């Protein structure tokens, strides 16, 4: 009994955990990591939507001057830069495009009814018919496996909105386009 009390006293003094093994890495398990970096940047990081003309195609970029139809590459091209010296893959997704506050564009309803579409393509596509389309499914993949190689690490992609009617007011939707970068 005396020894038990002394053990308890020693535990308190030494503040030892009782019956707990804090395992950082369990026996036999090995863990290694590739000392490589994942880093991309994109410009611009937002876009606005502006009226183009009766063709009902709307440009989507953070320019402050409305373009004329047909769209040029500069009207809707974004530039992704791989800041590292090793390759990365980049996926592009559109999700949860919702209405601009109090304005004419109601993207939430539009996306749900497939009235509007966000399209994307690799730099130089310009032709909307050749661009991939994302509709109402949040997180739907638009482009995958764009390779950003070391030594050739800057590429462009294009975003544009397509809609059946012309907006009469420059507006901004809200929502997110996600660029996901990872080791190939």
């Amino acid at each position, binding site marked *: 009994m*005396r020894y038990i009390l002394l053990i308890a006293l020693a535990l308190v003094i030494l503040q*030892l955990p009782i019956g707990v093994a804090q395992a950082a890495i369990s026996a036999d*398990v090995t863990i290694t990591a590739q000392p490589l970096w*994942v880093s991309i940047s994109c410009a611009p990081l937002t876009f606005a939507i502006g009226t183009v003309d009766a063709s009902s195609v709307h440009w989507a970029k953070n320019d402050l001057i409305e373009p004329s139809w047909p769209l040029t590459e500069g009207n809707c091209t974004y530039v992704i830069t791989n800041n590292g010296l090793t390759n990365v893959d980049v996926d592009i997704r559109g999700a949860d*495009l919702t209405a601009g506050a109090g304005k004419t564009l109601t993207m939430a309803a539009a996306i749900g009814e497939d009235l509007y579409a966000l399209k994307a393509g690799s730099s130089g596509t310009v032709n909307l018919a050749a661009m991939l389309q994302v509709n109402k499914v949040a997180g739907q993949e638009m482009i995958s*496996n764009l390779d950003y190689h070391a030594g050739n690490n800057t590429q462009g992609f294009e975003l544009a909105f397509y809609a059946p009617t012309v907006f009469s007011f420059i507006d901004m939707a809200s929502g*997110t386009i996600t660029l*996901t970068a*990872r080791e190939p």
Partner: protein
Amino acid sequence: MKLIKSLTIGMLILVLCLVSTSCTVNTPLSTVIPVSTPTPISGIEPPPIERNWISPAVVQVANFYPGATAEWAIQVHNGYSSAVDKYLVTTDPNEYSAWIHLKKILKEGNVANVIDILSTDKKDVATGEVLTAISYNASTNEIKIEGFKPDFARYLTIEYDHQSSTTYSVYYRNPDTLKAGYSAPPAGAQSWIIIADPSPVLAPYETREVMVTLMMPSKAVAPDKWSFWVGVTEKSNAGAGVAISIELCSTWLICMKGAN
């Protein structure tokens, strides 16, 4: 003397108990110590310090088994770029100026650090001059801009240098694509991954290690080889407009014990 003797015997019993316990624990400590700081390898250097990055790109866990634990720290680096805020600003009749709340703290509280002010309408100036930030209110983090055309609505873009920290999100993520030979994570795998600090707040140019721990329950099952991602994004405070969000992912490749 008797007390010392009793204490010594008690300590010996304690040590024996601890040794005996550690021998029966399912997951004893391994002698393998992770080295989580990336070391540049031949010709590979980190990105410029002004860019955001994460490292490592890939973590490989081998000989894993139910009940086992493995952990590795992911480095998250916060670079720096000037802030770009967008606003819808409406002026009343006879109103030529407006106070605008900045989303990040203006560097040094000095309007000289406002880099650019752009309006959607290039004719949106009452005086023919450019829009100009003329004063700063530190208590509200607002700048006063003058030169607006009265009774007019426009979108305004303000670019400025700031001194704000950035909050990131670090999270478990199902992989969008799988490496050859690897399966999707088993059901419930998300609950096996513990992110020590899922919302690190980093100052400009700061690098932070965030421990990621994989703890597989002893009764759980998993494919021979499976994978998950750890995603890192900057928490958005975007207002009007569609934001382009950048997500950086670290790939974790898990090879179970006995798998080829």
